[in-house]
């Protein structure tokens, strides 16, 4: 029985701990200074908005950890001695490990803006950030969000939910267009503005201006505009939190370097989640940092298997992700490039301009799906991509992919009409069998009326 020490109780570290417990009898200790118990980081916004209390963001009841013999230590781990196998904590305590898993997460980027350390200026990542934001946004007249990514739009929604006017500065020509294709990006631009957010595209922050108390009083942009505000949220991405590896001998670059087995340069030390930089020789680019909830979860599961006897390569499989932009849900499966090269794309937008479907395909097969305001089935999309299904096959069976609730409008026929118009081919939609042919019956009734 080894003592496995995990630094970080986010999704990666906790998933590793849970799966190690499932697979073995090792002693498990999880160290985190942030909170005593695991919580869902993506849910922090809902605690701010009052949809949830913070306690609701904890996926397991507090008794769960003792019952599963996962020891929790609330303390900050400062340094590691990889020879003695010691972790030194802020309290002065020392923890001895046999196997160490680093799951230290990320830190918000501060890109060297003038005034970035003023009062009322902050990023949003940790529980402490959330508490600070709660204090920083009390009784303010305007908040400025710097950055056009997922956290940026979440902070905008958070402030908006408390009726605080928001100005959003986005460097790019359109929201998140490094990831979203143009049409989706434009749709979200419109939705942001429709919410009443003051969205400025192609606008960069140049300076944050202080008041007499060394708190922010305004921001200045490259267009020469000045926006009065008492709160600035810096949401220009995150970078791996690798402070703990300092002087430990563990190799780092952007993140903590690991191979495809999530092993660091030091034996018996692994790194997973946001903090890990995965190097794989046969891919371009040679290394990548994955900062998603799902990848953290998968890496935690992989490392648990390796530690419990079956050395396992981390394979992400067919990509997927999801998010929510104010009221519009977003799901993506497979590969949907922001700009097309050779692949073709079938894009349909609902007349209400709040919903869209995009299917990306090559002459051989479908490679990706993008959904806004419509839900598709993960398993089905994944299966079609893995089985190299053609666009014709996918359209014929599109009925199976829909995951919207009952009574919702369906748009399979619209996709087919669009495809037929673009290519001149004929597609026949195969409807799923439904209970007693009830839908068919309704359709007949409608047709006869």
């Amino acid at each position, binding site marked *: 029985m080894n003592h496995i020490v995990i630094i970080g109780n986010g*999704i990666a570290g906790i998933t590793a701990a849970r799966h190690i417990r499932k697979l073995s009898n090792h002693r498990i200790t999880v160290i985190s200074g942030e909170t005593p118990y695991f919580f*869902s980081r*993506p*849910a922090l916004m*809902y*605690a*701010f*908005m*009052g*949809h*949830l*209390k*913070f*306690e*609701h*963001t*904890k*996926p397991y*009841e507090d008794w769960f950890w003792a019952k599963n013999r996962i020891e929790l230590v609330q303390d900050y781990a400062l340094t590691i001695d990889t020879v003695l196998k010691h972790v030194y904590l802020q309290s002065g305590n020392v923890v001895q490990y046999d196997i160490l898993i680093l799951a230290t997460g990320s830190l918000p980027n501060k890109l060297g803006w003038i005034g970035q350390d003023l009062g009322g200026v902050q990023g949003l990542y940790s529980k402490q950030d*959330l*508490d600070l934001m*709660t*204090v920083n946004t*009390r009784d303010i007249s305007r908040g400025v969000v710097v950055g056009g990514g997922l956290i940026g739009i979440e902070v905008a929604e958070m402030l908006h*939910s*408390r*009726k605080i006017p928001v100005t959003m500065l986005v460097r790019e020509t359109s929201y998140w267009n490094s990831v979203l294709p143009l049409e989706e990006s434009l749709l979200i631009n419109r939705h942001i503005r*429709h*919410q009443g957010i003051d969205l400025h595209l192609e606008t960069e922050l140049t300076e944050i201006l202080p008041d007499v108390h060394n708190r922010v009083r305004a921001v200045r942009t490259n267009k020469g505009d000045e926006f009065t505000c008492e709160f600035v949220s810096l949401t220009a991405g995150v970078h791996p939190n690798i402070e703990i590896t300092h002087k430990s001998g563990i190799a780092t670059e952007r993140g903590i370097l690991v191979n495809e087995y999530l092993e660091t340069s030091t034996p018996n030390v692994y790194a997973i989640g946001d903090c890990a930089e995965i190097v794989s020789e046969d891919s371009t680019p040679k290394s990548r940092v994955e900062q998603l*909830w*799902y990848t953290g*979860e998968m890496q935690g599961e992989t490392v648990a298997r390796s530690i419990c006897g079956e050395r396992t390569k981390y394979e992400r499989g067919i990509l*997927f992700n*999801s*998010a*929510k932009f*104010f*009221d519009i*849900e977003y*799901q993506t499966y497979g590969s949907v490039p922001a700009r097309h090269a050779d692949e073709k794309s079938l894009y349909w937008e609902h007349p209400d301009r709040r919903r869209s479907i995009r299917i990306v395909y090559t002459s051989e097969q479908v490679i990706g799906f993008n959904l806004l305001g419509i*839900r598709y*089935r*993960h*398993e089905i999309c*994944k299966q079609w991509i893995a089985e190299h299904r053609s666009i014709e096959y996918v359209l014929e069976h599109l009925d199976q992919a829909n*995951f*919207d*609730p*009952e*009574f*919702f*409008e369906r748009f399979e026929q619209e996709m087919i009409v669009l495809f037929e118009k673009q290519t001149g081919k004929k597609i026949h939609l195969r409807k799923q069998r439904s*209970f007693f042919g009830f839908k068919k019956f309704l359709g007949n009734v409608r047709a006869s009326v």
Partner: protein
Amino acid sequence: MNLIQIEIPQPTHPKESIMKKIGLAMFALGMLVFLSGATGAFENIKLFYCLGSLGLAALGGVLFILPSRNDGLPGIKNNGVMFRAISNRGALAWMTSVFLTGFYILLYWYPEYLKGLITSTDVISFGMTGKAATQWFLYGTIYTLAILVMGMKMIIKYRHSRYQIVRTISVMFFQLVFAYLIPHILEAFQQPEYYFTYFWPLKTSVLFPNDLQWLKSQPGALPQFMVFWGVIMSIIGVPILTYFFGKRWYCSYVCGCGGLAETLGDPYRQNSDKSLKSWKVERWMVHSVLVFITVTTGLLWANSIYGGELLGSASMYFSRWYGFLIGAAFSGVIGVGFYPIMGARVWCRFGCPQAAILGIFQKYFSRFRITTNGSQCISCGNCSTYCEMGIDVRAYAQRGENIVRASCVGCGVCSSVCPRGVLNLENGPVRGRVST
């Protein structure tokens, strides 16, 4: 957790906020007039007084609710639910709870204190049934109005979700027509007051021997149909419908208790207890009630077959105590009185024998499940928090497992509040239902 509770300013459109204020004023005025009428002050203008005051209150409610359709774009807007006293077990919630509980105690055991109010509704009762109002007529009228007015609020709140709209219109319809108009119209035609949407064991009289024999002895074809309908639905109809659609066809589309919970009770759904412990308590309690009522029914039939020699008068006490403990104390006083504190489905979850029986079918013989969409769950907890039945939905969703739980009433709110589109209520093949 030190999330500081702040007062959020709510700058709505001025015109709308005026409409809301007028609505509130009308509601208050209507209630005041209605209550003051309890003294008999409006003896000469009874019809005008009764319809006028209740109508004014209801219209006020509607005027207050309608402008909210312009509060932001359609979508899930649970902003501030955890900060407000009324929805977060604050002073207002406790006050409301004491008021509701008190009202039910008066209604069930001391109706004489409500005499003035009951007589106030005489004029409607005479119009509909040709008889003077009882406390149940007063109750039914207020109950139906509450479902209709708060149902509008529900529809506006979920105006982006057809599932929620259809379901809400359904409970409003069944309450108004089948639980209010038809029973009273039947009375007017000298027929037995009968509720076509309540079955055994929720409405025990549907299968109790004495009640059945009495109904059978009534003249005309309609009472015979009632006997047939109640027996067939209780024994055959309920299981078949539950096999195809799950428990929701009843609890979230037809039932009056469910109707009130889903409309008046919707703002309190987050207060249900999600702990594992509460699930254990729930299973013991609700199934005990079911066992009790089944044994009672069996004994009553045995007794009736043996000509009353078996139990003597004991069987009567048996059903009387059931009526007191379960019918009144549990379903009414605790069931509705505790809405703001324990969520709106306390009765459905811990006490309703119909829910228990539907739950057993749903768990073992049904095509219904909540499907989890692959690995898209982010464990945020919105689904569990807003589950009125206290199901820890997230515990299943985050493992990628489907949810097949006896207690699920299929309200669909977990699916609505999920920010990643992970949950969907579906009917499908029984095979492979549990393991995705």
